[in-house]
């Protein structure tokens, strides 16, 4: 995903005509991004792989619905839908916890995942990332998706709006809540974090 394909448009055209090889070139180019998105949304590798494969299959079949613009955001939207389908299939309800942010009690962080990292684990970078991922996973699916598309996939608001099928205002609102939710979640475990990762806030005054 880092670099754009020079001949992306040509590949898309060829794929539209049924060219599987051309489409597979696109797959290889975008599969990390799609899988990454799927992994963040799904929260586990196997489900993410399933959703990723489904997403590419769906994308190939729906190539005629691509009307130009960012192919990546179009692809991620399909991937997002594939993830939602997969979530539905697995009857895994995303944890919705932050709808009342940020007016709630600041001391009450969002419920931590059951397998919250222990202090010893959190000391390490890997564990910090794990904590962040768990905080993201704890978000409501709608917020989580927007957060991932924005802060991980680097899509613009407009692209996110296209991907999620919502308007710009909703994107901003959801993104704001998602970020605040993760921030609060991380603050709840900040004592476990190395000093350089601690979030600064006036809580320290208390």
């Amino acid at each position, binding site marked *: 995903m880092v670099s754009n394909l020079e001949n992306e448009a040509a590949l898309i055209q060829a794929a539209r005509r049924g060219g599987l090889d051309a489409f*597979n070139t696109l*797959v290889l180019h975008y599969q990390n991004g799609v899988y990454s998105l799927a992994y963040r949304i799904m929260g586990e590798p196997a489900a993410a792989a399933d959703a*990723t494969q489904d997403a590419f299959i769906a994308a190939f079949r729906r190539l005629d619905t691509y009307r130009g613009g960012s192919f990546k955001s179009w692809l991620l939207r399909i991937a997002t839908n594939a993830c939602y389908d997969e979530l539905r299939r697995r009857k895994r309800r995303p944890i919705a916890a932050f709808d009342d*942010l*940020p007016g709630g009690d600041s001391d009450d962080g969002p419920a931590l995942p059951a397998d919250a990292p222990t202090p010893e684990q959190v000391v390490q970078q890997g564990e910090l990332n794990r904590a962040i*991922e768990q905080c993201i996973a704890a978000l409501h699916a709608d917020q989580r998706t927007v957060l991932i598309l924005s*802060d991980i996939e680097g899509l613009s608001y407009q692209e996110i709006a296209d991907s999620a099928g919502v308007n710009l205002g909703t994107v901003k609102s959801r993104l*704001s809540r998602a970020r605040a939710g993760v921030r609060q979640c991380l603050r709840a475990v900040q004592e476990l974090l190395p000093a350089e990762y601690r979030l*600064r*806030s006036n809580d320290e005054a208390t």
Partner: protein
Amino acid sequence: MSARRNFTEQDYELLSAYLDGALPPTERTALETRLGADDGLRQELEALRQTVTLIGNLPARTAPRDFTLTPAMVRPARWLIFPTSAAFSGVAAAAATILILVGAGLLFLRSSSMTSAPSPMQPALQQESQAEVALVITETALPSAKAGEETDEIATRSNEMTLDGLFYLPTTASAVPYSTGDGSLAESEAGFAAPAMSNAQEPQEATTAIPAFEIAAPTVESNIGRDGDLTMQTGVQMGATFAAQGTLPQPVAPPVAADSAAQVGGNSLPADDAGAGAAMMADQAIVTVTGTPAATFNREMQPDLTTTADAARASLPTPTMQPTATASPTPTTASSPTPAATQTQDARDRASDAFAVEPVDLAPVILFLGVLFLAVAAVTTIIRRRRR
């Protein structure tokens, strides 16, 4: 800390958008003014920025494998064996139309032929059955000797025979003209009789080989004519029993049985065209007994039984039987080589009757196929439209 709690959801949205540089100039300026005056707000902004950075720094997940597609993955789901193209639907619809028309036509033919078919059979049947019974009695003693050995084979073959008779109805028809020829009768019989030989031995097992027997009944009569005792046995027995009991109706081919019965009545001959298979059976039976496959069939042989002569004709049409079985000459029964194959026109008539009968069987099948094609056309059309 109290300051932080005063932040509203709108404040967070402003901060979030500000981080992304997504605020319009006026709002951005206003927010920056607030940030300059509010430490709490500024700290909150930094916390958010740090959070976003942490999230953005999460290690990228790399695909655990390639997700390239294979042709099998993108092949449209095919739970139908046939394509859903418009062309296919059209062809299916056309085929359905033709089949239904043909089927309906055959049905019509059948109904008309049914009405015209001769129906005064019953009295004749009774007479014949009695005659046959008598014959049977004589016969029974003879056939048993051989029959004992070959009963098993007979049973199995008889089944086959009946099946053949059913399936090959059309062929019988075509064969009919063959047999009708006066001079050619002897030849044709010989040829057909040979295969039947093995089956001829069935008489003993009337119960198992019932369908075959019914058919065989006519032939028996003809046998009687020539060989007297022996020939009579197999065919006569069967025919007599069935005719007397009225059990003639053959399970497999109802129409055929009906026709055969009708013919019998009219000609007073037990042997109808019933089934080619039946005829074959009869021929075979005769052959075995007499030991002279071809010769045995001759009508002339049956001086005693006038009725049987007709029956012999009836058996003639059976040519359908192919020469699978080689005639097994049985020494016990003296072969009476009187190849006087004079087939009357009755045989022809019967053959024609058989012709009329056949369409009856095919009509429902053709109609069913027509409906099937119609359904296929409809289903493919529906699926095609639903996809769009």
